[in-house]
Every structure is written in structure tokens, then in C-alpha cells.
């Protein structure tokens, strides 16, 4: 059971994530305010300049995130609370990493082939299904989507070399 024990350990505390996110959002706010300042935040010939509104939006983000940052820094009670445990993070990563690969593949080999691979991979790897059940299901889902979008609703989705080979483009 030692493995279970380690998966309960915290991978990151709420406080650490809270502080990081506050810094990131502050940076976002600063960028927004800076770029708006560049294009003008005052009164132009036809009313407020383009940067007028977003400039203040950026400032409010910076101000509010500072408040969140300071609060998180001071709050002692929550400092050791876990944001995500190792086991949880592992599960999330098991989904997220294949998803990133999938999304990249969509742009290269089209959505139908990559969806088939993605669903098949998940069933084999996480679901521990055999090939006999995985292949028909993964292919079936993609074929169903193809019929639904390309044939019935006339909405073209990204396609790749396989579709070109089959003359479905």
C-alpha cells in the first residue's frame, strides 16, 4: 500500500498555486495596460482613444491580483492545504498529455484519424480493453462523426492524407 500512500501526498499547495496564478494574471494585466498606454489612453479627436478602456481594465487586473497575492501570502490557515495530490495530478496528466498530442495531430493528419487513434489509445491504455473491442468502437465513433458532419450537416472538418487517399476530400 506504499504506492497509495505516496499518491495522497500533495503535489502543490493551494497557496503556491494561488500565488503563481496571481503573478501570472498580474503580468497579463500589466501587458494589457502597457500596450493600451502605447496606443493612447487619453482623449483623441473622436472621443476616447483606443487604449482608454483596456488601459483601466489592465490596471484593475493588476490592482486586484496584488490584493489576492497579499491575502494569500498572509493567510496562514490555508497555507498547507493541498491544491492537487500526486495521484490526482497523475490522473489529470494522463488525460492532458494525450489531449495535447491529439490536438497537435488534428492539424497534421486530420480530425478523423487522430480521433480514432486518441479514443483507441485511451481504451487500450486506461480502459484495458482488448483490441477486439477497441478497434470497432474507435473506428465506429469516427465514422459516425464523419457521416454526421460531412454528409448530413455539410460541415467540413479537418482532413489529412488518409481522406485524400480515399478520395473523401
Amino acid at each position, binding site marked *: 500500500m506504499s504506492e497509495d500512500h505516496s499518491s495522497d501526498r500533495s503535489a502543490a499547495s*493551494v497557496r503556491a*498555486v*494561488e500565488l503563481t*496564478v496571481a503573478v501570472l*494574471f498580474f503580468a*497579463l*494585466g500589466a*501587458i*494589457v495596460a502597457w*500596450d*493600451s498606454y502605447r496606443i493612447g489612453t487619453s*482623449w*483623441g479627436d*473622436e*472621443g*476616447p*482613444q*483606443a487604449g482608454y*478602456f*483596456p488601459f483601466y*481594465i*489592465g490596471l*484593475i*487586473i493588476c490592482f*486586484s491580483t496584488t*490584493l*489576492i497575492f497579499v*491575502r494569500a501570502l498572509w493567510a496562514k490557515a490555508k497555507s498547507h492545504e493541498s*491544491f*492537487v495530490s500526486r495521484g*490526482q495530478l497523475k*490522473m*489529470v496528466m*494522463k*488525460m*492532458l498529455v494525450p*489531449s*495535447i498530442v*491529439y*490536438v497537435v495531430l*488534428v*492539424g497534421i493528419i486530420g*480530425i478523423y484519424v487522430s*480521433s480514432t487513434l*486518441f*479514443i483507441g*489509445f*485511451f*481504451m487500450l491504455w486506461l*480502459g*484495458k*480493453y482488448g483490441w477486439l473491442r477497441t478497434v470497432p*468502437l474507435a473506428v465506429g*465513433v469516427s465514422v459516425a*462523426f464523419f457521416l454526421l*458532419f460531412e454528409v448530413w*450537416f455539410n*460541415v467540413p*472538418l*479537418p482532413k489529412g492524407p488518409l481522406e485524400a487517399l480515399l478520395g473523401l476530400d
Partner: protein
Amino acid sequence: MAELESLFQGFAVAISPFNLLLMFIGVLLGVIIGVLPGLGGANGVAILLPLTFTMAQTPGGTTSAIILLSCIYWGALFGGAITSILFNIPGEPWSVATTFDGYPLAQKGRAGEALTAAFTSSFIGAFVAVMLITFLAPAMANFALQFGPPEYFSVYLLTFCAFVGMSKGQAVKTIVSMMIGFALAAVGLDTVTGQLRLTFGFTDLLKGFDFLIAVIGLFGIGEILLTLEEGLHFKGTRAKLNPRVVLDTWKELPRYWLTSLRASAVGCFMGIVPGGATPASFMSYGVAKRFSKDGDKFGTGMVEGVVAPETAAHAAGTSALLPMITLGVPGSPTAAVLLGGLLIWGLQPGPLLFVEQKDFVWGLIASMYLGNIAGLIVVLTCVPLFAAILRIPFSIIAPVILVICAIGAFTVHTSVSDVYLMLVFGVAGYVMRKLNYPLAPLVLALVLGDRAENSFRQSMIMSQGDMAILFSNALVGGLTTLALFLLFWPVLASLIKRIKGG
């Protein structure tokens, strides 16, 4: 009674075999969406929106399209209750409060009763809200016809300040979330001056951020990641709904008429003022608990504890469409997505709809009545089907949902870069949800950002930069004052608490 006359014309539009078919399809899809983790009202409608593009181009097609989409929404509202009661997993945020008493009831073997009570009260809540829309919408639209830029800006201000005032937890986080939405909305070409804003030389940023992508990512992908964290086991109670149980429960329900009435009132209020269905359901549960004779037994499996949140959630979800169709200001993320649909189909949401698109508006309102009846029929008869969907293992359903989200994101602008963006929004949504940053304000700010900014700039041009224009007449002044009051409410509330406490 001009409203009734218009309503009957609306029924004439809505009751065509094709539209009735769409209602049932919409509700069925909606319930499935509501039952599945990672798909909900807002992103479900967003994903299916592109499918209506061709439909909307045929004559009368916009009405059919909105009927389909709004019925998906009703279905999703109904569907959330199923997972809450049978699996103790809220399918939708607004059905969290339904788990409190719904799941204990199911554990006692009274799942059928709980489901019937939930569906029936959802129906009643929606019905009250639709009646409100029927009679209030024309008056509100008529009133809004005289609105100028300052009035509109004060309405937007009220919408956003209401979010801050009603936020649970840290109001600052609501503000940050909202401002990020505004910042994202500002990216791209400034329509007034023609200048580029926040694009930093990236051509991909020229067209700005589409809120549909944000909705699909934040709510869809973020939700799947959150669900995964809690593990993959769905341990549910089996459910069958036989007519006996349904009838017996219906006999019992009139006892809770007062609870229903209160819940409907809370729901309608929270829906129109953009609080949304989720806080409405919690608030209604709290109110019912306080007023009920059996208040202390709440949480152990009381039918009343199912009635209260479900009625309110559905009333709020429905009445959120009132400001959307009359003012063009959506009260919830799903209403925002529907509004986005109207814009894409070439309709201008707002008071003019009632003048220029009578058939469309009244067809929509009539379809709300019919759609909810269709919804009630579908959920009462198809519970075993929906419960079976939940038994599909997560290792199959999770990648399929992700594929659906990717397709949805792609079809919005037929652009692959939107699919990448969806994933980025997904991770952001996951982290923000875990840190209690509310997502609804971000989405609404992203939708309304440009229009709020334009009305602000127009007001400033009218007044030559004098902020006093926001107090220039009773209406604008009243709205602005109310908005500011709501904005500072969290600060006031904590001050009051401190004075009382100390």
C-alpha cells in the same frame, strides 16, 4: 391582452411537425449533455451552434434553429438532476444542491420519487419563468426602445456589478475573472478607431478571441480534468420510473406549493439579475430549509429539499433569457451562447426584435412552453436510457467528449488554431475553478466587452468626457447607483458583519 394574441401566433409558428421534432431531438440531446461530465448547457449549445448555420439560412429557419438550441438548454437543465440523484454527481453546477436530499432519497430506494419530484418542479419553475417572460418581455422591450448609449452602459454596468455583489467567496476574484474577459474581448481590431489592440504583431490575434472557444474550453475541458481528479468510479443506484410512482409523487407534490412559489420567485429574480441558476438553487435550498417545518431533517432525504433547488434552478435558467431577448444582455453563460447564435444568424438581439422579428420572438417564447412539456415527457420516460449512458466507462466517454469539444471548437471558425486555444482555455479553466475564480463573469465580459465599451465611448462622446452623464436622468442614475451599490456590497456586508459581531 395583446401578449396572448402574439403568443398564439407564436404557437402557430412553433407547432409545425418539423419544429416539434426538433424540440424532442433538442431535449433528448440536452439531457444527454446534462448527464455527461464535461458537457453542459453552455458548451453543449456552443458545440452544436455551428450545425444550425445552414438551417438558419432557410426561410423561418432561425426560429427552428433557436428552438433546437433552447430545447438543448431545457434538456440540460433537466438532465443535471438525474446524475445528482442517482449518482451523487452533479451533472451541472446548478444541480449540486439537488444532491443534498436527492441522493439520500435514492439510497433509501426512493429514487423514483426524487426524480419525479425533481422533474416536475423543474417544469413548474420553468413554467412560472416563461409566463413572466410572456407578459414582461414586451413591456421591457418597449421600454428599452428608448434606451441610448448611457442607458445601455448602465445596464451593462449593473450586469457586471451584480456578479460582484452576488459572488460567493472572494469578490476580488470575480473582478479579476471579469476583467480578464474584458481584456480578451479588447484583443483585435478596435471598431471605432480601426487601431490594432493587444495583438503584438500576431496575425492570429487579429480576429480576437471568440467566446464560444472560451466556453468550450473553460467549461468542457476544464470540467473533464476536474472529474478525472475525483476518480473514475460511477457508483449509482438503479432507477426505474413506473407510472405508479410518478402518480403517487404528483399527489404528494401540491403540499409543497409554498416552497415552489418561493423557489420560483428566487429563481426568476436571480435569473433576470445575472446571478444565474447555480446561486439561485443554493439560495432556494437555504430558504426552504429555514422556512420548512422539517427544516432540520433537510439533507437526510426530503422531497421538499429536491423541490426547492430544482424549481429555482429551472426558473433562473429560463428567466435568464428575458434580458437576453429584450435588452441583448444575457443573464447566464448559456444565454450568452444563444445570444451569440442570434448574432451569427444575422439577428440583432435587443428591443427591436419585438418589432422587426415578431415571428421569431414569439415562436421562441411559445417553444419555451412546448419545449418544457416535451422535456418533462422525455425525462419521465427515458430515465433508464440516461442512467445507462452514465454507466459507459469513463475511459471511453472522456476521449469521446474531448473529440466532441475539439470538433465544436473547430467548426466555430473552421480554424485548427481554435482547437489549440480551446485546450489552453481548458487548463486555465481547471486551475481557475480549483482556486474559486468564477468562470461565468469571464465569459459574459468576453461576450459583452465590445458592446459595453462602445456604449461607454459613445456616452463619453455625447457628454464630452463628463462622467456625470451616467447620472443624467432618473433611469440612468438609478441603474448606475444600484450597480455601484452592488459593486461595493461585499465590502459593506463585511463591515456590517464586523459591526454586529464586534
